């Protein structure tokens, strides 16, 4: 049995920022299924929002205006105190990253450069060219090396152990050896990121299975608003690699096969810089109505920005377009289409990242503090990891002061043995279905039937397909019967959770008979504040998720119709 004050699951930005805060006074370990710098935070491109007012056009910006943009962007589903905290604390966490060494791009006067982004009233997005996530994650990893934080790299979380409403710790597998271990901890933090790979078409890293959210769900934690799935407007046709919103922030155009900047039909004021839900739906509508190219994509045209600006501000985008799309954006438009990108929903927490179970916290994409509501603004996710990572880390220090160590380890040992037997039986099983056809079916089902445009019929079909997948999962067997670095076993453990998440997303989407933010029902195309200004809460049961609802916390921003 391994013992730490705090176990943080996930080594991306949220996990590391939490670790750095908590490690000021506590014994902290970060457990991650990949080496921390391999986490998906590394792939974030366009930037991080903070009302610094560094740009000439941004002089009148303020955190209150940032909060308003965030809440309006959320289609008023955000819990307003969470959005306010996010925006109020933004400048301080960005300055902190600068002090720790992040090489932000600069204006001529030496200040951090800021660019326009979707749904924002001012140029508010701080950036390090178009590799902002890469720069932030390396900085935080380096800071955590300096602070001597303990890492368990390539360990996969399998179970969260709760007893009498209290966290006891977690069970995890050392991927290199296949050995299971119990980790006793006074506080457990989920910082495990999103579940993009539940979908076939996703901008996410291949490791984004949502396994942390799934483990929390199985342990009984409420999962909030999971039907709100963000589709990024611009993923590269073919591989669906992200093409940053910064490309439009720098002035890029979206063009259909008639050569028209079609956003003028959908969002005449903000055009290409409308919030993501609106731009993604507009692009999909153009494709569906025959104004795309090859019926599959539309063009993101950067050519008018000129070679110098493209090379300076968007070097990684140019590299991606050349390496993975075979085109140079200096010379040709980039073929793009919407792809699953981000989860607004996640493990339900209070404003300090605490779940309803004492000692269990969540931060970053896997959490739902609900700063983003039904649609997140670009540049707010990196911000969320840092602001709430820091808050959670400090909240845990307070929790540790008030709670003595729990000596009872029976529940941990019981779960450890149960999981050990489960793995043993799975490895010994000779006959059964391989896991990849099940995973493929899940992915295509979600991308076909639980995507940008939803309706009762396809959602119902998806739900019954997911039922079948659950049955098929019970009969799997593995190719790899060994323990050492067994990817097959690793994938099998995660697949069970992915199917759970697919079910929660679909059931939540079917239940929510309105359109709000990223959730658009063809059969209920209007927002319905009377009946649906509320959060979905999903609880685990053997028969599938039990759904209930929770009030939205509104402080001073009255819900209004969104116009851009």
């Amino acid at each position: 049995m391994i013992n730490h004050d705090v176990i943080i699951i996930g080594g991306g930005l949220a996990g590391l920022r939490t670790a750095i805060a908590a490690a000021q006074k506590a014994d902290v370990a970060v457990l991650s299924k990949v080496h921390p710098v391999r986490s998906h935070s590394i792939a974030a491109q366009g930037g991080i929002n903070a009302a610094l007012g560094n740009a000439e056009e941004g002089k009148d910006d303020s955190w209150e205006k940032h909060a308003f943009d965030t809440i309006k962007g959320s289609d008023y589903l955000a819990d307003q105190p969470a959005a306010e905290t996010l925006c109020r604390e933004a400048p301080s966490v960005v300055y902190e990253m600068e002090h720790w060494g992040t090489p932000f791009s600069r204006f001529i006067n030496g200040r951090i450069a800021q660019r326009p982004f979707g749904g924002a009233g001012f140029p508010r997005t701080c950036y390090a060219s178009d590799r902002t996530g890469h720069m932030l994650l390396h900085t935080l990893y380096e800071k955590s090396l300096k602070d001597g934080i303990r890492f368990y790299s390539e360990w996969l979380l399998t179970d969260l152990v709760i007893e009498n409403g209290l966290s006891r710790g977690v069970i995890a597998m050392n991927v290199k050896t296949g050995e299971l271990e119990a980790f006793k901890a006074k506080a457990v933090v989920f910082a495990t990121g999103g579940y993009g790979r539940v979908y076939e078409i996703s901008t996410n890293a291949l490791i984004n299975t949502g396994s942390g959210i799934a483990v929390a769900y199985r342990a009984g934690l409420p999962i909030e608003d999971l039907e709100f799935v963000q589709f990024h407007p611009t993923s590269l046709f073919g591989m669906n690699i992200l093409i940053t919103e910064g490309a439009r922030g720098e002035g890029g155009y979206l063009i259909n096969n008639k050569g028209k900047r079609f956003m003028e039909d959908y969002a005449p004021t903000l055009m290409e810089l409308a919030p993501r839900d609106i731009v993604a739906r507009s692009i999909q509508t153009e494709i569906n109505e025959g104004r795309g190219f090859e019926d599959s994509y539309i063009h993101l045209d950067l050519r008018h920005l000129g070679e110098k600006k493209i090379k300076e501000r968007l070097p990684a985008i140019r590299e991606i377009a050349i390496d993975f799309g075979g085109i140079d954006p200096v010379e040709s438009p980039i073929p793009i289409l919407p792809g699953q990108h981000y989860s607004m929903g996640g493990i339900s927490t209070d404003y300090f990242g605490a779940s309803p179970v004492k000692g269990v916290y969540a931060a970053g994409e896997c959490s739902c503090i609900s700063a983003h509501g039904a649609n997140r603004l670009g540049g707010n996710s990196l911000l969320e990891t840092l602001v709430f990572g820091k808050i959670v880390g400090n909240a845990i220090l307070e929790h540790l002061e008030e709670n003595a160590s729990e000596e009872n380890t029976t529940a941990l040992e019981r779960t450890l043995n149960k999981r050990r037997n489960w793995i043993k039986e799975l490895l010994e099983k000779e006959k059964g279905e391989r896991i990849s056809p099940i995973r493929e079916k899940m992915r295509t089902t979600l991308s076909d039937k639980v995507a940008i445009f939803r309706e009762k019929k396809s959602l119902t079909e998806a739900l019954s397909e997911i039922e079948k997948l659950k049955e098929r999962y019970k009969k799997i067997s593995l190719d790899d019967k060994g323990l050492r670095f067994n990817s097959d076993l690793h994938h099998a453990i995660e697949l069970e959770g992915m199917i759970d998440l697919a079910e929660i997303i679909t059931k939540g989407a079917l239940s929510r008979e309105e359109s709000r933010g990223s959730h658009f029902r063809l059969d209920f195309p209007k927002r319905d504040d009377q009946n649906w200004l509320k959060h979905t809460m999903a609880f685990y049961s053997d028969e599938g998720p039990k759904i209930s609802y929770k009030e939205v916390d509104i402080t001073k921003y009255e819900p209004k119709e969104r116009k851009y």
Partner: protein
Amino acid sequence: MNQKKENIDLTDYIFKVLRFNPEKDKHSFFQTYHVSIHEGETVLEALLDIQDHQDGSLTFRYSCRSAVCGSCGMTINGALALACKTQLKSLFRHEILIEPLPNMTVIKDLVVDMEPFWNMYKIIEPWLHTEEDAPEKERLVSPEDMKKIDQYINCILCACCYGACPVLARDEEYLGPAAIARLFRFLEDSRDKRDLATIDRFNNQKGIWGCDTVFQCIDACPKDVRPTDGIAGVRRKYLLHRFRRLFRLAK
């Protein structure tokens, strides 16, 4: 939002993958897989196709599949590269030889033990060294000064350079190209105020003087970092520091 994946021409490839599982194998061996796949796809996609449809026991690391996380460095037809960045058609042949990164111990198949690489990275203290208290806002840095570190911050710590380095092949205690180039990234950062005396400990053949300057690391880098330039830069800065120290003593 479906993408047409049907009706595209598939090409037959033969993948010969060096496999080794110390749990059961005495020696490593090449296993052959036949894959039909579009030539515009990458080596990583071909390996995932094998894992998904033929052999779930084939083991390799991957994450972002967009050349930024640094997980999937390996040896592809004798050259070190990221599997996710290597398009099949760029290889100009249909038989593809896949081996793990050199200079590190194999854990299983294409997965190597990167601990020595991470230790070297840590040892150069890869964080900003500053003396004074942080200002209220950001430290001012000119765009020109930021540009000086531009190529070095592009490093994704994939260890392709570490695998390619002939010095590391004969001396595993050598710091290696990535770590020294990272050190240069900080020395060139106008905000970093580290005392160069802290790198006296690398003033030897295991440290900044180990490099043979044969540029293998530059060829291997998938992100156009030139580690050798960084090594030369550290040497230059360190010598200048030593001379200055001597002159100060002489006064």
